[in-house]
């Protein structure tokens, strides 16, 4: 198979901008435009969206660059569920970096969510009902 035989070739316009041996592929900067597009959509229609970072050809260095560029905002939430999940808002409010770890501590999946509040953080009405039952039990114990 010759190298040209595989039809899809990504042309990295930013290839010249990055150092050759930095491990950067040049695929990360374009993501910023996509995130901006999703933020527009959130403002215009209220529709939340997400980017699956595992589904894209990004090197570890690309991910690091993206994480650093987006920066750390004011909110960091940790979820303990079969391994730790970190949901942290970036410097751009409404743009969240979500990392799910498995019980061994390895990254199981990683997303950028563009939303006012990530769905995972909200309490489900069914769970609130269970909490309410528990509260009532606590109150009945008072008397």
């Amino acid at each position: 198979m010759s190298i040209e035989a595989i039809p899809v070739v990504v042309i990295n316009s930013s290839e010249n901008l990055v150092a050759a041996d930095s491990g950067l592929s040049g695929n990360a900067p374009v993501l910023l435009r996509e995130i901006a597009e999703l933020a527009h959509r959130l403002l215009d229609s209220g529709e939340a969206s997400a980017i699956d970072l595992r589904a894209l050809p990004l090197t570890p260095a690309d991910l690091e660059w993206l994480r650093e560029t987006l920066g750390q905002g004011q909110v960091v939430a940790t979820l303990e569920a079969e391994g730790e999940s970190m949901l942290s808002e970036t410097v751009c409010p409404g743009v969240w970096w979500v990392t799910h770890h498995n019980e061994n501590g390895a990254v199981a999946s990683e997303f950028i969510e563009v939303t006012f509040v990530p769905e995972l953080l909200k309490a489900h009405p069914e769970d609130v009902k269970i909490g309410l039952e528990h509260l009532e039990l606590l109150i009945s114990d008072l008397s």
Partner: protein
Amino acid sequence: MHGPLIDTLARQGVTRRTFMKYCATLASMMALPPAAGRAMAEAMASAPAATRRPSVIWLPFQECTGCTESITRSHSPTLEGLIFDAISLDYQETLMAAAGHQAEEALHAAMKANEGKYLLIVDGSIPLGLDGAYSCIAGKSNLDTLKEVAKGAAAIVAMGSCAAYGGIPKANPNPTGAVSVSDIIKDKPIINIPGCPPIPVVMTGVLAHFLTFGSLPEMDSKGRPKAFYGETIHDRCYRRPFYDQGKFAKTFDDEGARNGWCLFELGCKGPVTYNACATVKWNGGTSWPVESGHGCLGCSEPDFWDAGGFYKALSMPADPLKMASTAAIAGAAAGVAISFANRGKKSAAKSAHETTTLADLEK
């Protein structure tokens, strides 16, 4: 989002958020859009409670038990394990406590009680040589057993490359006359989960689909679940950008190898191999062959063992794993091969079927 599954999970201490996180990750592994995670959570959580757990019969034929190892050792007791709890595994020689006549009784009892409804999982290929005498269980050839058990199955899962395509037992010169499940059974839905071994989560995904919808997921032309085998290793490889930039490791210890460049020239079969290793990874998401610095062997493709050497760069654009079938194509392939990787170094491969020698490794 509530239903019998979520209630069962809650009783085992699994919260709704944990389940949603699991579904988000499963959707990512299945290469579905991020929004699909929530849709799957809704679908699975609200699936109607089965009156009884679906029966699963697992038949081992010409196999090495690597597939069973892959599945059973893949997870600590987590959600995947809980999904396995949702089935009734009625016959599995390696795992079941019963042996001999007792085991065979269990098999026949399960077949009778669940006729037309059970899921049949097969690992290993089926030998047709010497009237099937190469592999027998309980005095019956694998061929007879497969035909008998397949008759009452709702669907069949061909687990691993041997059951799906014949695998290593079928490798040249195929002394036992090994064939795949789909070579024999023609009147049942069959899903192939190839790989040597297959990725455990693919099994879980197919099982979750069967539990949720009572059917097999969407398949490609080779009978594989599209969700996991829809794209090549190469298309989803994190080293792909280096391929696009023409940056290749030339040996396993040169500068390119140290910089994590593309392994194409070292024989990586990623461009012609459909599997999910690049996204799902192995050993609980720890790593996978290319991340460890070794090219893909193409173990989930038909006849991967005879595809012409693991350390030879791919030499023709079509489907090199099939190129042995016609001599004319093999000849053309040899021509391209000289002009590319092995330029002037060796004479062209006369056929794709050749033994991997030390010379191949030292290419």
